[in-house]
């Protein structure tokens, strides 16, 4: 079932339905993500948030068609502008990748092939998708770098990745991703490896992209703060399943799923009173192969009941939010 964001009137750009990815392990199939469904509209920034192992990167790479581990099984549907991407031929997928959907990764340090200049690598992507000479490509590269706020873009284009600082590198990565004017940008933890001051700059850059380039962004992160700062809407993942979705402001103000609540509570507050002890969540997020039956969060949940041994459906929880919890509508556990 798709998640709709009522405020957005624009056309859905990406529709993901019941996306499941599983991998065989010790003779059985282990689901990495289960029944992920959402819709991303044009010029929308959607935050995909969750702890490690929650399946957020798998979701993104599955959409990009970059999962190629032997034995991996992908089911469900990913429609990009109405075109089905699951099961699309490698050649057709390649034409979409980089041109219509671009992706940036966590570590700008390793995102570039170390032996080529940054400019060369951006040119390469442009030339892979458009019939341009190297000179024309380079012109666009320099222009893009300038747009990304890179000082002295001509010179920077001729430098090798290791010669750039982390911030510049991430700008170059974003410039490369945007080089063919993609309509969808998937950013997988784009700021995790960066310092806060640099992170702030990059986040600023990303949030302006929809205006400057008309791009939608799927932002993947584990940092609630980043989501709150940047995204229009949020999807919280827990152990490969959607825990809760909703508009960013509403969700952070009134989380409907106990996990979201607990997660927000366990972040040490920067302002206001300092609690003597943080309301931590007991235990650790389960690895995919040891995910409990029923609600994956139930073993760590204060309010777990017998019913939680079945998987709760994602159901509306008011305020445009949806939560996968039997007690979501009633329980607003704010501690």
């Amino acid at each position, binding site marked *: 079932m798709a998640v709709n964001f009522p405020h957005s009137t624009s056309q859905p750009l990406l529709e993901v339905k019941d996306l499941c990815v599983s991998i065989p392990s010790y003779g059985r199939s282990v689901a990495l993500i289960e029944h992920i469904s959402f819709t991303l509209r044009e010029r929308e920034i959607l935050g995909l948030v969750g702890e490690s192992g929650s399946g957020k990167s798998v979701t993104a790479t599955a959409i990009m068609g970059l999962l190629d581990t032997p034995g991996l099984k992908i089911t469900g549907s990913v429609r990009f502008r109405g075109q089905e991407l699951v099961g699309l031929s490698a050649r057709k997928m390649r034409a979409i990748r*980089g041109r219509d959907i671009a992706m940036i990764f966590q570590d700008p340090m390793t995102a570039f092939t170390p*032996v080529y200049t940054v400019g060369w690598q951006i040119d390469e992507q442009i030339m892979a998708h458009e019939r341009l000479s190297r000179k024309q490509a380079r012109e666009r590269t320099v222009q893009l770098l300038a747009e990304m706020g890179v000082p002295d873009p001509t010179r920077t284009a001729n430098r*090798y990745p*290791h010669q750039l600082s982390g911030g510049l590198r991430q700008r170059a990565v974003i410039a490369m991703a945007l080089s063919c004017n993609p309509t969808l940008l998937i950013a997988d933890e784009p700021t995790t490896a960066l310092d806060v001051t640099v992170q702030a700059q990059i986040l600023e850059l990303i949030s302006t992209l929809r205006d400057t380039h008309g791009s939608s962004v799927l932002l993947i992160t584990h940092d609630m703060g980043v989501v709150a700062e940047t995204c229009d809407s949020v999807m919280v993942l827990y152990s490969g399943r959607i825990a809760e979705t909703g508009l960013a402001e509403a969700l952070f103000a009134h989380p409907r799923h106990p996990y979201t609540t607990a997660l927000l509570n366990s972040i040490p507050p920067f302002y206001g009173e300092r609690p003597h002890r943080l309301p931590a969540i007991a235990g650790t997020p389960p690895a995919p192969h040891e995910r409990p039956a029923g609600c994956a969060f139930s073993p760590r949940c204060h309010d777990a009941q017998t019913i939680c041994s079945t998987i709760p459906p994602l159901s509306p929880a008011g305020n445009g939010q949806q939560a996968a919890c039997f007690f979501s509508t009633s329980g607003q556990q704010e501690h």
Partner: protein
Amino acid sequence: MLSAFLRRVGQTLIVLFGISVLVFLVFFATPGADPTARIAGRNASPQTMEKVRHEYGFDRPLPFQYATMMKKLFITRDLTSYANRGEQVVPEIIQAAPVTLSLVCGSAVIWLIVSVAMGTLAAAMKGSWVDRTLIMLGLVGISMPVFWLGQVANLISLSRYHDTWLFSWVPGPGYVPLTQNPLAWFKALVIPWCVLAVMFIGIYSRILRADLVALAQEDFMRTARAKGLSPARILVFHGLRTSAITYVSLFGLDFAQLLGGGALLTEVVFGLPGVGRLTYQALTNLDLPLIMATVMYSATFVVLANAVVDILYILLDPRVRDGR
């Protein structure tokens, strides 16, 4: 850059000096190594022995002898063999070098092409039967003693199947200079090339495959895929180009060792009068001037190759370029 270069030269000289002193001392510690009797001839009278001893300076202190030998080897370049009167060692090595060079270069071309093809193919088809077959082939290549493989090749091409169309063109063992008859040169060397290349094909295809497979996990490879590049382009421009750094550095060292005499077993089995065989002969005859010259020659190659590899590193890897 200059200081790095000078340091390099200094290190090289230390290594060369160390080797030469070691060889020199070991020679004098080895019983039966005194060449006087061999130079003087059978049953030469004690006076003749004395004359030889004096003429060759064997009655001088060791450091003096060492210095003289080095001077003759590097400055006047007229060092003569102890085992074979009147034979100058420098021209001898200069004679042998082209043979080894022909052997090693040809072989290197083969192993370069085949190992890159095999390694790339195996990496591209990782996990398939093609991959497994290629891995196995590589392992078999590594497992065969080169001298034995050479013998078997000789047996097949020169004896058992020499009369069939397949091998009737194979000339007997021996070397024909390229300048003399290029076709005969090629015919004489093509089987040695292949035999020598087999082991390196095995080693290098494995290394390359492992490297490429490891690289496939790298972020930048994922980025390249995310860019929508074709698999071939990713493999060649991003994978192979990056692997080239490791590959070339190993290649340089092996190539140098072979040029420096490491191919001696192949040379021996195929009767090629190259540097390796020369060194081996010098060693078995305990012919110090020739040992010294060949060992210096081979050490120089290895050290030189190290330097060339470093330069290649700088050319291939911009990170190293900035590192110094």
